[in-house]
């Protein structure tokens, strides 16, 4: 399906902010609900790295959660162009994992962004997949693999 997980250098760097005194254990309680400007800006950048962005557990090749796996499968079935897709593994980055929940005001992972707009999690992707609205959204945003001439399979005998 997807040949790689793209984590742009910019976002990768921005997602690991410099050590901040507010991140010390004494401020753990504050930290939980505190979306720092740095983190917010890093997530702004992450959300803008590609037309289709999925914050998930694990990678597209190796999802670490059934819901994340289901989301990847749906995007694959829809024919999302890998060149227009980026996945972020929240398990690699605790600040991203909690930050994205504050940022999106959404309690669970995975989270799908299309054209920098939050679309929803697995349940919503599933129902949009079933009623055709996901296909329509992805077509409108022109993020699908081109239909013509791409019947050629990657495998060779």
């Amino acid at each position, binding site marked *: 399906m997807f040949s790689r997980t793209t984590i742009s250098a910019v976002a990768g760097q921005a997602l690991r902010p410099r050590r901040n005194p507010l991140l010390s254990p004494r401020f753990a309680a504050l930290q939980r609900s505190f979306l720092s400007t740095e983190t917010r800006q890093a997530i702004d950048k992450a959300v803008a790295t590609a037309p289709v962005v999925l914050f998930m557990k694990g990678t597209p090749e190796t999802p670490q959660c059934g819901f994340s796996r289901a989301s990847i499968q749906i995007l694959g079935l829809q024919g999302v162009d890998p060149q227009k897709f980026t996945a972020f593994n929240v398990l690699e980055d605790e600040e991203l994992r909690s930050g994205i929940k504050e940022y999106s005001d*959404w309690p669970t992972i995975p989270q799908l962004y299309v054209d920098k707009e939050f679309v929803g999690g697995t349940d919503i992707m599933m*129902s949009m997949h079933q009623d055709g609205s996901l296909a329509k959204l992805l077509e409108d945003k022109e993020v699908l693999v081109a239909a013509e001439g791409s019947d050629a399979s990657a495998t060779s005998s």
Partner: protein
Amino acid sequence: SAAVEPPDYLDERERKIFDTVKQELKPTKLEVQDISGGCGSMYALDIVSESFKGLPVIKQHRLVNKILGEEIKNWHGVQLKTKA
């Protein structure tokens, strides 16, 4: 529309969730199920309510998130099915 009554087989936590949703959304259909094998860490909710009328699915889910806000934060996951 008939009010929903909590079934007997709900455990304590399911019952609490049921009552909260019932109170806030006055649903015509409501199902709450612990899908974490009784661990109280993941729930499936199926809600039909007029409170959802006119709202896109994502706003319907956000409404449920708001109502169960503090609870959801302690869960590992949640599955929502909502309908107006």
